[in-house]
Structures are given as C-alpha cells and as structure tokens.
C-alpha cells in the first residue's frame, strides 16, 4: 500500500485539520470533534433549519465539502468507512440549532442509521426538534426485508443540494423532511468498479478484479456488487446503466437531473467521456435532462469506478440544483 499519510490513526483528524486550514472562511472545526460547521458571516446572522449530515471518511468531498450557505450547516466525519459517533453528531446538532429544529441526512447503512438515531435521542432529550431522512438511492440492492435495504450512495449529494437550497429559503423542518423524502424517492443510482479501494487500516484492496474485469453494483465501501463482467466501451456501459435505472421510473416524462460521479481513482477525462455517452443516450430516449453534473462528489478512497445517478425532478428542484452555493465540493 502506498498512500500519502502519516499514522493510520491520525488520518481523520489530519484530514479535517487540512480541510479547515485551507477553507477557514467557509468552515470551522467544532472543538473536540471531527465535525465541521459553517463559518461564514451569513450563518451567524441568519436563522434557518440546521442541516446536518455525516458518515465515514474516505468519501470526500462528501460531507464536509458540502458545508456552506445553501447546502449543509454542519458535517460529521467518522473514521474511514465508519459512521461517526453519537456524541460528535450531537455536538454538530447543537452547533447549528437556531431554534427551528435540525434535519439529519443519513445514508442507509446500519452504522450510520444507529449512530444518528442515538444522537437524535440525545438532542431530543434537550428539546431540540429533530427529523431524519435516510437516503437509499442505490438500485443495485434489492429493497427487501432480507437485506439492510438499499444503500445511500452518490445521490446523497443531490438530496443535500435540494434540501439545502430549500432550508436557505426558509422552509420549515417538517416540510424539509417531506421534500427530502420526495427527492430520495425520485433518485436512483448504480455504480461500477474497475478496481477496489484500499482501506488504509487494511492495506490491500477490498476485493480483486482481473485487468479486464469490472464489477456492477458496488457500494461506496468496497461492498461487492451483483456481477463481474469483462470491461466494455463507455457507450455500452452507459446504455446498460441507463436501462437499469430507467426501469425504476414508471413515468419518464418531466425534467430529469443527472450526476456522473467518480469513485476517487477514475480520471475526469473518463468521467466526461462517460457523461457524453450518458447524455447522448438519454437524448435518444427522449429523456429531458435539465441539469447535469460530473465529478468526484461521493468517492470511495482510491476506488476506480463511476456511478450514474438519475433523478426525476418535481416542482422547482431543477432551480434548486442550479442555485449557486459556496462550498468546497459542489
């Protein structure tokens, strides 16, 4: 394993320290935690519902990179691929609570769900009003009672963008939770890997793929997918993934948003080639794409791979996705 790190135990505090030092006008560290909170003037001067998200580290820029006016109020970083702890989430809730309540955006992983749940109980004991939305956009996993349910992956960032925009415009906690759930219901993602990620504490890739193999349906923590196949041209991959995702939408009319997300180790060049194929294919299928974004948003350390997210939008979601924000990662 070759990585630009110091001690494995110091990865998260040093990551947060680096993020904060290079973006001090934007975010600050909540003392005694590995959570960051908005540090802009507007944050201290305006009241809005607090939006807190978080999860394991290794997915940067998610979540700390999306803290800023119009997106998250605070983000809590856990150890690599490990949910943050309830006490840290609780501190973040307190740091953003302005009396209008706090919305928690959680990715559907058992650890995240449990830790945020414990933090919610702690905050509610302080009479802070909390609502939680759980993102489960990954369609590669069956949503059955026999699994944890669908995972929360790249679509999370679109949820954070829309909910963040609505919170900035003054929406109430209950309405934000409703909006967030509607966005989640309309957001579908599927990912592929060319090479697994190496967790620093482990030291080798989480699984092995041959030089000419790709894996379909991987998660963002090296979870294996549903099939291993030979690598294909970008255009074929795009067609296959689009076909899988579009099956999830009964009504294909209306305005759509698309996110092409790099998993961390795939060059932007390849992401744009894939994006070109995705948009061409959607155009051929008469899908009206009004918003698209390409880049490393929800990564999985050094995993080589890509995910495709398609969202069927409602109301003014496209406007909310397009609203400018000042964050590290958007």
């Amino acid at each position, binding site marked *: 394993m070759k990585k630009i790190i110091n001690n494995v135990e110091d990865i998260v505090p040093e990551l947060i320290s680096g993020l904060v030092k290079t973006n001090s006008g934007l975010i600050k560290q909540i003392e005694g935690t590995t959570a960051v909170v908005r540090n802009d003037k507007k944050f201290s001067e305006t009241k809005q519902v607090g939006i807190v998200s978080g999860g394991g580290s290794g997915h940067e820029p998610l979540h700390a990179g999306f803290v800023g006016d119009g997106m998250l109020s605070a983000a809590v970083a856990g150890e690599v691929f490990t949910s943050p702890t309830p006490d840290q989430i609780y501190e973040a809730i307190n740091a953003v609570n302005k009396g209008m309540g706090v919305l928690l955006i959680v990715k559907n992983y058992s650890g995240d769900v*449990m830790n945020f749940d414990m933090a919610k109980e702690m905050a509610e004991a302080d009479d802070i009003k909390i609502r939680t939305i759980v993102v489960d956009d990954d369609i590669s996993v069956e949503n059955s009672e026999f699994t*944890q349910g669908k995972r929360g992956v790249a679509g999370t960032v679109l949820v954070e963008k829309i909910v963040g925009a609505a919170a900035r415009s003054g929406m109430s906690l209950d309405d934000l939770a409703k909006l967030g759930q509607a966005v989640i219901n309309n957001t579908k993602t599927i990912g592929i890997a060319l090479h697994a990620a190496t967790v620093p504490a482990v030291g080798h890739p989480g699984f092995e793929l041959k030089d000419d193999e790709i894996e379909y349906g991987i998660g963002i923590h090296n979870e294996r997918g549903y099939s291993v196949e030979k690598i294909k041209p970008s255009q074929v991959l795009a067609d296959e993934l689009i076909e899988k995702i579009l099956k999830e939408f009964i009504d294909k009319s209306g305005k759509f948003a698309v996110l092409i997300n790099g998993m961390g180790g795939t060059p932007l060049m390849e992401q744009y080639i894939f994006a070109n194929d995705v948009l061409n294919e959607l155009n051929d299928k008469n899908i009206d794409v009004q918003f698209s974004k390409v880049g490393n948003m929800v990564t999985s350390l050094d995993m080589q791979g890509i995910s495709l997210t398609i969202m069927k939008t409602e109301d003014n979601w496209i406007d909310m996705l397009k609203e400018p924000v000042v964050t590290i990662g958007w």
Partner: protein
Amino acid sequence: MRLELEEASNWIKLFAKKVEANKSELNELDTAIGDGDHGTNMDRGAKAIVESLSKNDPTNVSDLYKDTAFAMIQKVGGASGPLYGTAFLDMSKAVKNGNIELSDLIQIGTDGIKRRGEADVNMKTMIDVWQPISDVLKSGKLIKKDVKEALDSTEDMVATKGRASYLEEKSKGHIDPGSQSSAYLFDTLVDVLGENN
C-alpha cells in the same frame, strides 16, 4: 450466579486485551464480508475502555458497565459502537439498584442489541453469539465449547442484517466478524468464571 465488581472488571479488561491482540484477525474477517475495519474500530474501543476504567476506577458494576458503554459508543463508531454500547448501557441500568443473575444480565444486553439493530437471531450478526450464550447461562455453566459452537454457527448463515447482507448468498462460508468479537467477550467471561463455573 452474579458477577461481582472484581470479576466483572477483570472480564472487561481481559476482553479489551483480547480485542487488541486480535485486531488483524477481526479486520481480516471483516474484509471478507464487510469493509475490513472491525478490528481497527474495536481496538480503538478497547483502548478507550482501558483508559476510561483506569481514570474513573468504577466502584460498582453499574458504573463499570456504563464506562464500558460510553467508551464503545464514543470511540468505536460504525454499527458495533452503538450495538456494544447499547448492550452495556442496558446492562448498567439493569444493575443500578442491585446486582442481578449473570444469565439475566446477558439476556438484557442481548435484548439491547436486538432493539438497537432491529435484528434477531439467524441474521448472521453478533446476536447469534449473544443469544445462545445467554441461553446456555440460563441452563447452567458456560464453557468455551459453547462459545465456539455459537460462533461457528454463523459461518453457514446468510446475512440479512448489516453490511454483509448486501452479499446475500455470498455471505455464506464466512464467520461473522461481530460474532467473533462477541466470542472474545464470552471467551474472556469463561476465563474469569473458570471452566467449572
């Protein structure tokens, strides 16, 4: 049989030691069907337990279990932090007004894990060690063979909870990492009780 402060304290400390010594083993098991960090996370919790116990020097079993719970909740993260944390927190509450039978204590911990994880037996989780051990304690003495049997039973199970559940059938043939760390907990309990408990 009730576990008094000295035995209980030895138990927790032995467990912490065992986890630290088997950090890589737990990581390896977790690499097969999870994300490879169960050992690293539990090791962080084990160190926090040792630090907390030496700092607070709890004077009753309730405080001992509470310190253990808080160390796990604050330092482990992932799913294991809240699960072990809830088990020990519920055990702490249960002995607050006086010690209880060991079998009842472990059942209360097991119920805590079931509640927090919304899970039950046969889902290839730590419950598949906790519940059988609790059952053994109810009927008599606990030996390491019981722990091993419970642990081994997870190998052929298909995971339906937690991250391994995404593997569905492919989760078969691997020991559940959370069950392995739970087996360390009960192995060290046998060490404290003696095989002739």
